Protein backbone atom coordinates (compact mmCIF):
# COMPACT_ATOMS: atom_id res chain seq x y z
CA UNK A 1 0.00 0.00 0.00
CA UNK A 2 2.81 2.44 0.81
CA UNK A 3 4.25 1.77 -2.61
CA UNK A 4 0.93 2.65 -4.14
CA UNK A 5 0.64 5.86 -2.15
CA UNK A 6 4.20 6.78 -3.03
CA UNK A 7 3.35 6.12 -6.66
CA UNK A 8 0.42 8.49 -6.46
CA UNK A 9 2.45 11.12 -4.64
CA UNK A 10 5.14 11.03 -7.31
CA UNK A 11 2.54 11.46 -10.04
CA UNK A 12 0.92 14.29 -8.08
CA UNK A 13 4.30 16.01 -7.77
CA UNK A 14 4.93 15.69 -11.49
CA UNK A 15 1.52 17.12 -12.36
CA UNK A 16 1.88 19.78 -9.67
CA UNK A 17 5.01 20.96 -11.48
CA UNK A 18 3.04 21.09 -14.72
CA UNK A 19 0.17 22.94 -13.08
CA UNK A 20 2.47 25.41 -11.36
CA UNK A 21 4.28 26.22 -14.57
CA UNK A 22 1.05 26.55 -16.51
CA UNK A 23 -0.36 28.76 -13.79
CA UNK A 24 2.65 31.01 -14.28
CA UNK A 25 1.49 31.88 -17.77
CA UNK A 26 -2.28 31.53 -17.32
CA UNK A 27 -2.59 33.15 -13.91
CA UNK A 28 0.07 35.80 -14.08
CA UNK A 29 0.68 36.51 -17.74
CA UNK A 30 -2.86 35.85 -18.97
CA UNK A 31 -1.61 33.60 -21.76
CA UNK A 32 -4.07 30.74 -22.16
CA UNK A 33 -2.16 27.87 -23.58
CA UNK A 34 -3.67 24.52 -24.50
CA UNK A 35 -0.29 23.17 -25.53
CA UNK A 36 1.37 22.60 -22.20
CA UNK A 37 1.50 18.86 -22.75
CA UNK A 38 3.67 19.46 -25.81
CA UNK A 39 6.51 20.76 -23.67
CA UNK A 40 5.86 18.07 -21.09
CA UNK A 41 6.35 15.64 -23.96
CA UNK A 42 9.43 17.29 -25.41
CA UNK A 43 10.96 17.18 -21.95
CA UNK A 44 10.07 13.53 -21.54
CA UNK A 45 11.32 12.39 -24.92
CA UNK A 46 14.52 14.41 -24.71
CA UNK A 47 15.33 13.15 -21.24
CA UNK A 48 14.63 9.58 -22.36
CA UNK A 49 16.82 9.97 -25.42
CA UNK A 50 19.67 11.54 -23.47
CA UNK A 51 19.41 8.97 -20.69
CA UNK A 52 19.50 6.08 -23.13
CA UNK A 53 22.21 7.40 -25.41
CA UNK A 54 24.36 9.80 -23.41
CA UNK A 55 23.97 9.56 -19.66
CA UNK A 56 21.14 9.01 -17.21
CA UNK A 57 22.67 11.67 -14.95
CA UNK A 58 19.99 14.06 -13.66
CA UNK A 59 22.14 17.11 -14.29
CA UNK A 60 22.71 16.09 -17.89
CA UNK A 61 19.29 14.82 -18.89
CA UNK A 62 17.15 17.45 -17.19
CA UNK A 63 19.04 20.50 -18.50
CA UNK A 64 18.96 18.94 -21.96
CA UNK A 65 15.20 18.47 -21.67
CA UNK A 66 14.77 22.06 -20.49
CA UNK A 67 16.91 23.39 -23.31
CA UNK A 68 14.98 21.43 -25.92
CA UNK A 69 11.65 22.68 -24.61
CA UNK A 70 12.93 26.23 -24.30
CA UNK A 71 14.18 26.33 -27.87
CA UNK A 72 11.01 24.79 -29.30
CA UNK A 73 8.77 27.09 -27.32
CA UNK A 74 10.81 30.09 -28.41
CA UNK A 75 10.38 29.16 -32.05
CA UNK A 76 6.65 28.70 -31.59
CA UNK A 77 5.93 31.53 -29.19
CA UNK A 78 7.48 34.26 -31.29
CA UNK A 79 4.97 34.09 -34.13
CA UNK A 80 2.02 32.91 -32.05
CA UNK A 81 2.32 35.58 -29.38
CA UNK A 82 1.81 38.31 -31.92
CA UNK A 83 -1.88 37.52 -32.05
CA UNK A 84 -4.61 38.31 -29.57
CA UNK A 85 -6.01 36.14 -26.79
CA UNK A 86 -8.62 34.00 -28.55
CA UNK A 87 -6.24 33.42 -31.41
CA UNK A 88 -3.49 32.30 -29.11
CA UNK A 89 -5.80 29.71 -27.58
CA UNK A 90 -6.59 28.46 -31.07
CA UNK A 91 -2.95 28.58 -32.09
CA UNK A 92 -1.92 26.61 -29.03
CA UNK A 93 -4.65 24.10 -29.73
CA UNK A 94 -3.32 23.77 -33.25
CA UNK A 95 0.19 23.36 -31.94
CA UNK A 96 -1.01 20.61 -29.63
CA UNK A 97 -2.67 18.69 -32.45
CA UNK A 98 0.34 19.12 -34.73
CA UNK A 99 2.67 17.99 -31.97
CA UNK A 100 0.63 14.85 -31.34
CA UNK A 101 0.89 14.00 -35.03
CA UNK A 102 4.62 14.59 -34.96
CA UNK A 103 5.07 12.60 -31.76
CA UNK A 104 3.21 9.71 -33.38
CA UNK A 105 5.02 9.89 -36.69
CA UNK A 106 8.59 10.80 -35.77
CA UNK A 107 9.29 7.26 -34.72
CA UNK A 108 13.07 7.48 -34.46
CA UNK A 109 12.69 10.08 -31.70
CA UNK A 110 9.46 9.10 -30.00
CA UNK A 111 8.78 5.50 -30.95
CA UNK A 112 5.30 6.53 -32.17
CA UNK A 113 2.35 4.99 -30.37
CA UNK A 114 4.62 2.18 -29.26
CA UNK A 115 6.61 4.71 -27.29
CA UNK A 116 10.03 4.54 -25.73
CA UNK A 117 10.54 1.52 -23.50
CA UNK A 118 13.29 0.67 -21.06
CA UNK A 119 14.31 4.17 -20.00
CA UNK A 120 17.06 3.69 -17.40
CA UNK A 121 16.72 4.94 -13.84
CA UNK A 122 17.91 8.50 -13.33
CA UNK A 123 21.25 9.03 -11.55
CA UNK A 124 22.17 11.76 -9.13
CA UNK A 125 25.96 12.15 -9.25
CA UNK A 126 26.24 8.56 -10.34
CA UNK A 127 23.82 7.11 -7.79
CA UNK A 128 20.71 5.65 -9.42
CA UNK A 129 17.43 6.90 -7.99
CA UNK A 130 14.74 4.33 -8.54
CA UNK A 131 13.18 3.49 -5.16
CA UNK A 132 9.81 5.18 -5.01
CA UNK A 133 10.52 7.20 -1.87
CA UNK A 134 13.86 8.41 -3.21
CA UNK A 135 12.16 9.41 -6.37
CA UNK A 136 9.42 11.15 -4.43
CA UNK A 137 11.97 13.21 -2.50
CA UNK A 138 13.66 14.17 -5.77
CA UNK A 139 10.34 15.14 -7.36
CA UNK A 140 9.32 17.16 -4.32
CA UNK A 141 12.63 19.02 -4.34
CA UNK A 142 12.14 19.84 -8.02
CA UNK A 143 8.62 21.02 -7.27
CA UNK A 144 9.82 23.17 -4.36
CA UNK A 145 12.52 24.77 -6.50
CA UNK A 146 10.05 25.49 -9.29
CA UNK A 147 7.54 26.98 -6.87
CA UNK A 148 10.31 29.12 -5.41
CA UNK A 149 11.34 30.33 -8.86
CA UNK A 150 7.84 31.26 -9.97
CA UNK A 151 6.95 32.79 -6.61
CA UNK A 152 10.04 34.96 -6.59
CA UNK A 153 9.52 36.06 -10.16
CA UNK A 154 5.94 37.02 -9.50
CA UNK A 155 6.99 39.39 -6.74
CA UNK A 156 9.63 41.19 -8.77
CA UNK A 157 9.12 44.02 -11.20
CA UNK A 158 9.00 41.36 -13.89
CA UNK A 159 6.04 39.77 -12.16
CA UNK A 160 4.29 43.12 -11.99
CA UNK A 161 4.87 43.60 -15.69
CA UNK A 162 3.35 40.19 -16.36
CA UNK A 163 0.26 40.97 -14.34
CA UNK A 164 -0.03 44.36 -15.99
CA UNK A 165 -0.01 42.68 -19.40
CA UNK A 166 -2.61 40.20 -18.21
CA UNK A 167 -4.93 42.93 -16.98
CA UNK A 168 -4.53 45.32 -19.90
CA UNK A 169 -2.21 44.72 -22.75
CA UNK A 170 -2.70 48.10 -24.36
CA UNK A 171 -2.12 49.98 -21.10
CA UNK A 172 1.02 47.94 -20.49
CA UNK A 173 2.21 48.88 -23.96
CA UNK A 174 1.44 52.51 -23.30
CA UNK A 175 3.57 52.37 -20.19
CA UNK A 176 6.57 51.32 -22.22
CA UNK A 177 6.57 47.60 -21.58
CA UNK A 178 7.95 45.45 -24.38
CA UNK A 179 5.19 42.92 -24.07
CA UNK A 180 6.42 40.59 -26.79
CA UNK A 181 9.70 40.03 -25.00
CA UNK A 182 8.06 39.69 -21.61
CA UNK A 183 5.43 37.24 -22.85
CA UNK A 184 7.94 35.24 -24.85
CA UNK A 185 10.25 34.99 -21.88
CA UNK A 186 7.45 33.79 -19.64
CA UNK A 187 6.31 31.18 -22.16
CA UNK A 188 9.87 29.95 -22.65
CA UNK A 189 10.46 29.75 -18.92
CA UNK A 190 7.19 27.99 -18.29
CA UNK A 191 7.90 25.48 -21.08
CA UNK A 192 11.42 24.80 -19.85
CA UNK A 193 10.15 24.15 -16.34
CA UNK A 194 7.37 21.95 -17.69
CA UNK A 195 10.10 19.91 -19.36
CA UNK A 196 11.44 19.10 -15.89
CA UNK A 197 8.13 17.43 -15.17
CA UNK A 198 8.44 15.56 -18.47
CA UNK A 199 11.90 14.30 -17.59
CA UNK A 200 10.81 13.17 -14.13
CA UNK A 201 7.82 11.43 -15.63
CA UNK A 202 9.90 9.60 -18.22
CA UNK A 203 12.37 8.41 -15.60
CA UNK A 204 9.66 7.39 -13.23
CA UNK A 205 7.49 5.45 -15.65
CA UNK A 206 10.50 4.14 -17.59
CA UNK A 207 8.06 4.11 -20.48
CA UNK A 208 6.55 7.02 -22.34
CA UNK A 209 4.44 7.26 -25.44
CA UNK A 210 2.46 9.89 -27.24
CA UNK A 211 -0.71 9.15 -25.29
CA UNK A 212 0.67 10.92 -22.23
CA UNK A 213 1.18 14.12 -24.18
CA UNK A 214 -2.11 14.60 -25.98
CA UNK A 215 -4.71 17.32 -25.77
CA UNK A 216 -6.37 15.49 -22.86
CA UNK A 217 -3.27 16.07 -20.75
CA UNK A 218 -3.16 19.74 -21.64
CA UNK A 219 -6.79 20.07 -20.71
CA UNK A 220 -6.31 18.17 -17.48
CA UNK A 221 -3.42 20.39 -16.42
CA UNK A 222 -5.47 23.42 -17.35
CA UNK A 223 -8.33 22.05 -15.26
CA UNK A 224 -5.94 21.59 -12.33
CA UNK A 225 -4.99 25.25 -12.50
CA UNK A 226 -8.52 26.50 -12.98
CA UNK A 227 -10.13 24.23 -10.40
CA UNK A 228 -7.39 24.86 -7.86
CA UNK A 229 -7.29 28.58 -8.38
CA UNK A 230 -5.39 30.75 -10.84
CA UNK A 231 -2.73 33.23 -9.77
CA UNK A 232 -2.22 31.51 -6.44
CA UNK A 233 0.60 29.27 -5.27
CA UNK A 234 -1.52 26.68 -3.48
CA UNK A 235 -4.26 26.48 -6.11
CA UNK A 236 -2.41 24.48 -8.76
CA UNK A 237 -0.99 22.13 -6.11
CA UNK A 238 -4.42 21.46 -4.72
CA UNK A 239 -5.85 21.09 -8.21
CA UNK A 240 -3.16 18.58 -9.15
CA UNK A 241 -3.74 16.57 -5.99
CA UNK A 242 -7.51 16.53 -6.41
CA UNK A 243 -7.53 15.53 -10.04
CA UNK A 244 -4.90 12.86 -9.58
CA UNK A 245 -6.56 11.37 -6.52
CA UNK A 246 -10.04 11.34 -7.96
CA UNK A 247 -9.56 8.47 -10.43
CA UNK A 248 -7.77 6.39 -7.85
CA UNK A 249 -10.44 7.11 -5.28
CA UNK A 250 -13.15 6.16 -7.75
CA UNK A 251 -11.60 2.78 -8.52
CA UNK A 252 -12.04 1.93 -4.85
CA UNK A 253 -15.77 2.47 -4.98
CA UNK A 254 -16.51 -1.16 -5.67
CA UNK A 255 -20.24 -0.63 -6.05
CA UNK A 256 -19.61 1.28 -9.27
CA UNK A 257 -19.64 -0.98 -12.31
CA UNK A 258 -16.07 -1.59 -13.43
CA UNK A 259 -16.77 -0.83 -17.04
CA UNK A 260 -18.24 2.57 -16.21
CA UNK A 261 -15.48 3.84 -13.92
CA UNK A 262 -13.56 5.53 -16.69
CA UNK A 263 -16.68 7.36 -17.78
CA UNK A 264 -17.78 8.30 -14.29
CA UNK A 265 -14.38 9.73 -13.57
CA UNK A 266 -14.52 11.85 -16.71
CA UNK A 267 -18.05 12.96 -15.97
CA UNK A 268 -17.19 14.04 -12.43
CA UNK A 269 -14.23 15.95 -13.74
CA UNK A 270 -16.22 17.64 -16.48
CA UNK A 271 -19.01 18.56 -14.07
CA UNK A 272 -16.51 19.96 -11.58
CA UNK A 273 -15.20 22.26 -14.29
CA UNK A 274 -18.69 23.44 -15.18
CA UNK A 275 -19.92 23.97 -11.62
CA UNK A 276 -16.78 25.77 -10.52
CA UNK A 277 -16.95 28.11 -13.48
CA UNK A 278 -20.54 28.94 -12.61
CA UNK A 279 -20.22 29.28 -8.86
CA UNK A 280 -16.59 30.00 -8.15
CA UNK A 281 -14.70 31.03 -11.28
CA UNK A 282 -11.61 31.94 -9.29
CA UNK A 283 -11.11 28.30 -8.35
CA UNK A 284 -11.19 26.63 -4.95
CA UNK A 285 -8.31 28.69 -3.60
CA UNK A 286 -9.49 32.01 -4.91
CA UNK A 287 -7.45 34.97 -3.73
CA UNK A 288 -10.51 37.16 -4.02
CA UNK A 289 -13.79 35.27 -3.84
CA UNK A 290 -16.41 36.26 -6.34
CA UNK A 291 -13.99 37.92 -8.70
CA UNK A 292 -11.34 36.07 -10.57
CA UNK A 293 -10.10 36.03 -14.09
Amino acid at each position, binding site marked *: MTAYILNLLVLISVYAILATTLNFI*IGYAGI*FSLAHAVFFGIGGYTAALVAMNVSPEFFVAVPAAMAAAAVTSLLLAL*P*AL*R*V*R*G*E*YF*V*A*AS*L*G*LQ*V*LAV*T*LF*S*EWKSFTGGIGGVIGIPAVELFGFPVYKPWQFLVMALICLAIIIAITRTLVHTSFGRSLKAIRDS*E*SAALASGKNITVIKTFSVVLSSALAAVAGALYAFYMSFINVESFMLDTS*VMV*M*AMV*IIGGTATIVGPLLGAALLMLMPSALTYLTFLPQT*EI*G*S*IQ*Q*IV*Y*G*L*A*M*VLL*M*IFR*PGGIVSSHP*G*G*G*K
Partner: protein
Amino acid sequence: MLFLQLLANGLQVGAIYALTAAGFSLIFGSTKIFHFAHGATFAIAAYLFHFALAGLGLHWTFAVAVAALSAVVFGVLLDRLMYAPIQRHEGSFFTVFVASFGIGIVVQNLLGSVFGRGFMSVSTPLSNSIEVMPGLYLSPLNGLAVVVAIVCFVALHFFMTHTFIGKGLRALSENPELVRTFGLSPRRLSTYAFALGSLLVVPGAIFTAAGTGINPAVGHHVMLISLAATIVGGIGSLRGAACAGLLIGVAENLAMWKLGTQWSEAITFAILFFFIIFKPSGFFGRATVS
Protein backbone atom coordinates in the same frame (compact mmCIF):
# COMPACT_ATOMS: atom_id res chain seq x y z
CA MET B 1 -8.95 9.98 -61.63
CA LEU B 2 -7.79 9.50 -58.08
CA PHE B 3 -7.59 13.26 -57.89
CA LEU B 4 -11.22 13.65 -58.94
CA GLN B 5 -12.28 10.98 -56.48
CA LEU B 6 -10.42 12.66 -53.63
CA LEU B 7 -11.84 16.02 -54.64
CA ALA B 8 -15.36 14.59 -54.60
CA ASN B 9 -14.79 13.06 -51.19
CA GLY B 10 -13.34 16.35 -50.01
CA LEU B 11 -16.39 18.28 -51.17
CA GLN B 12 -18.73 16.04 -49.23
CA VAL B 13 -16.65 16.20 -46.06
CA GLY B 14 -16.14 19.91 -46.59
CA ALA B 15 -19.87 20.54 -46.91
CA ILE B 16 -20.44 18.93 -43.52
CA TYR B 17 -17.58 20.86 -41.95
CA ALA B 18 -18.85 24.07 -43.48
CA LEU B 19 -22.30 23.71 -41.92
CA THR B 20 -20.98 22.85 -38.50
CA ALA B 21 -18.39 25.60 -38.61
CA ALA B 22 -21.04 28.12 -39.67
CA GLY B 23 -23.03 27.18 -36.57
CA PHE B 24 -20.05 27.70 -34.31
CA SER B 25 -19.13 30.92 -36.06
CA LEU B 26 -22.66 32.24 -35.71
CA ILE B 27 -22.66 31.58 -31.98
CA PHE B 28 -19.15 32.84 -31.39
CA GLY B 29 -19.56 35.86 -33.62
CA SER B 30 -22.78 37.12 -32.13
CA THR B 31 -22.43 36.14 -28.47
CA LYS B 32 -18.64 36.02 -28.08
CA ILE B 33 -19.14 32.69 -26.30
CA PHE B 34 -16.43 30.21 -27.15
CA HIS B 35 -18.90 27.37 -27.43
CA PHE B 36 -16.61 24.37 -27.30
CA ALA B 37 -19.61 22.17 -26.49
CA HIS B 38 -20.76 22.69 -30.07
CA GLY B 39 -19.14 19.32 -30.75
CA ALA B 40 -21.29 17.81 -28.00
CA THR B 41 -24.39 19.15 -29.74
CA PHE B 42 -23.21 17.40 -32.88
CA ALA B 43 -22.72 14.11 -31.05
CA ILE B 44 -26.11 14.32 -29.34
CA ALA B 45 -27.90 14.99 -32.60
CA ALA B 46 -26.09 12.12 -34.29
CA TYR B 47 -26.79 9.65 -31.49
CA LEU B 48 -30.42 10.55 -31.10
CA PHE B 49 -30.90 10.31 -34.86
CA HIS B 50 -29.38 6.87 -34.77
CA PHE B 51 -31.43 5.89 -31.75
CA ALA B 52 -34.70 7.15 -33.23
CA LEU B 53 -34.06 5.39 -36.52
CA ALA B 54 -32.46 2.13 -35.43
CA GLY B 55 -33.57 1.89 -31.80
CA LEU B 56 -37.14 3.10 -32.00
CA GLY B 57 -37.65 2.23 -35.64
CA LEU B 58 -39.12 5.61 -36.52
CA HIS B 59 -39.45 6.84 -40.07
CA TRP B 60 -36.42 8.85 -41.10
CA THR B 61 -38.34 12.13 -41.19
CA PHE B 62 -39.21 11.71 -37.53
CA ALA B 63 -35.66 10.76 -36.75
CA VAL B 64 -34.44 13.96 -38.39
CA ALA B 65 -36.97 15.90 -36.33
CA VAL B 66 -35.76 14.20 -33.15
CA ALA B 67 -32.18 15.09 -34.00
CA ALA B 68 -33.02 18.70 -34.79
CA LEU B 69 -35.12 19.12 -31.68
CA SER B 70 -32.49 17.60 -29.41
CA ALA B 71 -29.74 19.79 -30.85
CA VAL B 72 -31.75 22.97 -30.43
CA VAL B 73 -32.92 22.08 -26.93
CA PHE B 74 -29.41 21.19 -25.83
CA GLY B 75 -27.94 24.39 -27.27
CA VAL B 76 -30.57 26.62 -25.73
CA LEU B 77 -30.41 24.87 -22.35
CA LEU B 78 -26.66 25.35 -22.22
CA ASP B 79 -27.06 29.01 -23.04
CA ARG B 80 -29.69 29.52 -20.37
CA LEU B 81 -28.38 27.30 -17.60
CA MET B 82 -24.63 27.52 -18.04
CA TYR B 83 -23.48 30.49 -20.05
CA ALA B 84 -25.98 32.99 -18.71
CA PRO B 85 -25.02 32.47 -15.04
CA ILE B 86 -21.32 32.59 -15.90
CA GLN B 87 -21.69 35.77 -17.88
CA ARG B 88 -23.60 37.38 -15.05
CA HIS B 89 -20.37 37.69 -13.10
CA GLU B 90 -17.75 39.04 -15.47
CA GLY B 91 -17.42 35.78 -17.37
CA SER B 92 -14.07 36.09 -19.04
CA PHE B 93 -13.47 34.37 -22.30
CA PHE B 94 -11.59 31.61 -20.60
CA THR B 95 -14.12 30.93 -17.85
CA VAL B 96 -16.72 30.27 -20.51
CA PHE B 97 -14.33 28.12 -22.48
CA VAL B 98 -13.48 25.91 -19.51
CA ALA B 99 -17.12 25.37 -18.59
CA SER B 100 -17.93 24.57 -22.19
CA PHE B 101 -15.06 22.13 -22.39
CA GLY B 102 -16.31 20.48 -19.21
CA ILE B 103 -19.77 19.96 -20.68
CA GLY B 104 -18.17 18.44 -23.76
CA ILE B 105 -16.42 15.86 -21.59
CA VAL B 106 -19.62 15.08 -19.67
CA VAL B 107 -21.68 14.59 -22.80
CA GLN B 108 -19.10 12.41 -24.49
CA ASN B 109 -18.97 10.04 -21.55
CA LEU B 110 -22.69 10.01 -20.93
CA LEU B 111 -23.31 9.08 -24.55
CA GLY B 112 -20.71 6.35 -24.22
CA SER B 113 -22.38 4.95 -21.12
CA VAL B 114 -25.87 5.06 -22.54
CA PHE B 115 -25.32 4.04 -26.16
CA GLY B 116 -22.06 2.14 -25.95
CA ARG B 117 -18.58 3.27 -26.84
CA GLY B 118 -18.09 1.53 -30.13
CA PHE B 119 -18.69 2.92 -33.58
CA MET B 120 -22.23 2.94 -34.77
CA SER B 121 -23.59 3.73 -38.15
CA VAL B 122 -26.98 3.74 -39.76
CA SER B 123 -27.06 1.20 -42.50
CA THR B 124 -28.59 2.72 -45.54
CA PRO B 125 -28.36 1.76 -49.18
CA LEU B 126 -27.62 5.44 -49.85
CA SER B 127 -24.03 5.01 -48.75
CA ASN B 128 -23.30 2.46 -51.50
CA SER B 129 -21.26 4.05 -54.22
CA ILE B 130 -21.99 3.81 -57.92
CA GLU B 131 -19.31 4.07 -60.54
CA VAL B 132 -20.36 7.25 -62.31
CA MET B 133 -17.37 7.21 -64.62
CA PRO B 134 -14.39 4.87 -64.74
CA GLY B 135 -12.59 5.17 -61.43
CA LEU B 136 -14.95 7.71 -59.94
CA TYR B 137 -17.36 6.31 -57.39
CA LEU B 138 -20.01 8.47 -55.85
CA SER B 139 -22.68 7.54 -53.37
CA PRO B 140 -26.09 9.20 -53.28
CA LEU B 141 -25.06 10.37 -49.84
CA ASN B 142 -22.20 12.39 -51.35
CA GLY B 143 -24.52 14.36 -53.54
CA LEU B 144 -27.20 14.67 -50.89
CA ALA B 145 -24.74 16.15 -48.40
CA VAL B 146 -23.62 18.79 -50.85
CA VAL B 147 -27.17 19.65 -51.91
CA VAL B 148 -28.41 19.87 -48.31
CA ALA B 149 -25.47 22.09 -47.40
CA ILE B 150 -26.22 24.45 -50.27
CA VAL B 151 -29.90 24.60 -49.35
CA CYS B 152 -29.03 25.30 -45.72
CA PHE B 153 -26.68 28.09 -46.66
CA VAL B 154 -29.20 29.75 -48.94
CA ALA B 155 -31.80 29.54 -46.17
CA LEU B 156 -29.34 30.85 -43.62
CA HIS B 157 -28.39 33.75 -45.82
CA PHE B 158 -32.03 34.64 -46.34
CA PHE B 159 -32.67 34.39 -42.61
CA MET B 160 -29.77 36.60 -41.68
CA THR B 161 -30.58 39.29 -44.19
CA HIS B 162 -34.36 39.30 -44.31
CA THR B 163 -35.70 38.58 -40.86
CA PHE B 164 -35.78 40.76 -37.80
CA ILE B 165 -33.96 38.19 -35.66
CA GLY B 166 -31.33 37.59 -38.30
CA LYS B 167 -30.62 41.30 -38.56
CA GLY B 168 -30.53 41.51 -34.78
CA LEU B 169 -27.97 38.72 -34.65
CA ARG B 170 -25.79 40.45 -37.16
CA ALA B 171 -26.08 43.69 -35.22
CA LEU B 172 -25.19 41.84 -32.03
CA SER B 173 -21.91 40.75 -33.48
CA GLU B 174 -21.08 44.31 -34.44
CA ASN B 175 -22.19 46.20 -31.39
CA PRO B 176 -24.12 44.83 -28.39
CA GLU B 177 -24.82 48.36 -27.11
CA LEU B 178 -26.50 49.27 -30.34
CA VAL B 179 -28.74 46.22 -30.04
CA ARG B 180 -29.84 47.30 -26.61
CA THR B 181 -30.74 50.77 -27.79
CA PHE B 182 -32.88 49.25 -30.52
CA GLY B 183 -34.91 47.56 -27.83
CA LEU B 184 -33.64 44.03 -28.47
CA SER B 185 -32.38 42.01 -25.57
CA PRO B 186 -28.90 40.59 -26.19
CA ARG B 187 -29.81 37.77 -23.84
CA ARG B 188 -32.79 36.76 -25.97
CA LEU B 189 -30.81 37.14 -29.18
CA SER B 190 -28.19 34.93 -27.65
CA THR B 191 -30.82 32.23 -27.24
CA TYR B 192 -31.75 32.57 -30.91
CA ALA B 193 -28.09 32.36 -31.86
CA PHE B 194 -27.74 29.12 -29.93
CA ALA B 195 -30.92 27.67 -31.37
CA LEU B 196 -29.90 28.48 -34.92
CA GLY B 197 -26.24 27.59 -34.48
CA SER B 198 -27.15 24.25 -32.94
CA LEU B 199 -29.65 23.53 -35.68
CA LEU B 200 -26.87 23.88 -38.24
CA VAL B 201 -25.04 20.83 -36.87
CA VAL B 202 -27.97 18.55 -37.59
CA PRO B 203 -27.34 17.82 -41.29
CA GLY B 204 -23.68 17.14 -40.57
CA ALA B 205 -24.57 14.88 -37.67
CA ILE B 206 -27.03 12.89 -39.75
CA PHE B 207 -24.71 12.47 -42.72
CA THR B 208 -21.93 11.39 -40.43
CA ALA B 209 -24.17 8.87 -38.71
CA ALA B 210 -25.19 7.46 -42.08
CA GLY B 211 -21.80 7.64 -43.72
CA THR B 212 -18.63 7.24 -41.73
CA GLY B 213 -20.29 6.28 -38.47
CA ILE B 214 -20.25 7.86 -35.05
CA ASN B 215 -18.65 7.26 -31.71
CA PRO B 216 -18.94 9.33 -28.54
CA ALA B 217 -15.79 11.27 -29.40
CA VAL B 218 -17.11 12.29 -32.81
CA GLY B 219 -17.93 15.76 -31.54
CA HIS B 220 -14.38 16.40 -30.56
CA HIS B 221 -13.00 16.14 -34.07
CA VAL B 222 -15.85 18.18 -35.49
CA MET B 223 -15.25 20.83 -32.87
CA LEU B 224 -11.58 21.16 -33.70
CA ILE B 225 -12.44 21.53 -37.35
CA SER B 226 -15.15 24.11 -36.64
CA LEU B 227 -12.80 26.12 -34.50
CA ALA B 228 -10.12 26.07 -37.15
CA ALA B 229 -12.62 26.97 -39.87
CA THR B 230 -14.03 29.84 -37.84
CA ILE B 231 -10.64 31.43 -37.43
CA VAL B 232 -9.45 30.69 -40.93
CA GLY B 233 -12.67 32.16 -42.26
CA GLY B 234 -12.50 35.17 -40.01
CA ILE B 235 -14.28 35.36 -36.68
CA GLY B 236 -17.88 36.43 -37.11
CA SER B 237 -18.03 35.77 -40.83
CA LEU B 238 -20.48 33.01 -41.73
CA ARG B 239 -19.39 33.08 -45.34
CA GLY B 240 -15.77 32.78 -44.21
CA ALA B 241 -16.49 29.85 -41.91
CA ALA B 242 -18.33 28.06 -44.68
CA CYS B 243 -15.54 28.57 -47.22
CA ALA B 244 -12.92 27.59 -44.70
CA GLY B 245 -14.83 24.44 -43.74
CA LEU B 246 -14.98 23.49 -47.39
CA LEU B 247 -11.30 24.29 -47.85
CA ILE B 248 -10.32 22.14 -44.89
CA GLY B 249 -12.44 19.22 -46.04
CA VAL B 250 -10.97 19.33 -49.52
CA ALA B 251 -7.39 19.86 -48.29
CA GLU B 252 -7.69 16.95 -45.86
CA ASN B 253 -8.80 14.61 -48.61
CA LEU B 254 -6.48 15.81 -51.32
CA ALA B 255 -3.59 15.35 -48.93
CA MET B 256 -4.44 11.65 -48.89
CA TRP B 257 -2.96 11.55 -52.34
CA LYS B 258 0.47 11.47 -50.78
CA LEU B 259 0.00 11.15 -47.03
CA GLY B 260 -1.68 8.77 -44.64
CA THR B 261 -4.89 9.69 -42.83
CA GLN B 262 -2.98 10.27 -39.65
CA TRP B 263 -1.87 13.60 -41.12
CA SER B 264 -5.35 14.96 -41.73
CA GLU B 265 -5.74 16.82 -38.45
CA ALA B 266 -2.21 18.10 -38.75
CA ILE B 267 -3.07 19.51 -42.17
CA THR B 268 -6.10 21.32 -40.79
CA PHE B 269 -4.05 22.88 -38.08
CA ALA B 270 -1.19 23.72 -40.36
CA ILE B 271 -3.71 25.74 -42.38
CA LEU B 272 -4.95 27.31 -39.16
CA PHE B 273 -1.43 28.17 -38.09
CA PHE B 274 -0.68 29.73 -41.42
CA PHE B 275 -3.71 31.98 -41.14
CA ILE B 276 -3.14 32.91 -37.53
CA ILE B 277 0.36 34.01 -38.28
CA PHE B 278 0.01 35.62 -41.66
CA LYS B 279 -3.61 36.67 -41.84
CA PRO B 280 -5.22 36.59 -38.41
CA SER B 281 -8.32 38.33 -39.69
CA GLY B 282 -9.09 35.32 -41.92
CA PHE B 283 -10.64 35.25 -45.39
CA PHE B 284 -13.36 37.77 -44.85
CA GLY B 285 -12.66 38.97 -41.35
CA ARG B 286 -12.94 42.58 -40.39
CA ALA B 287 -9.71 44.28 -39.45
CA THR B 288 -9.13 43.53 -35.80
CA VAL B 289 -8.09 46.41 -33.63
CA SER B 290 -6.86 45.65 -30.18
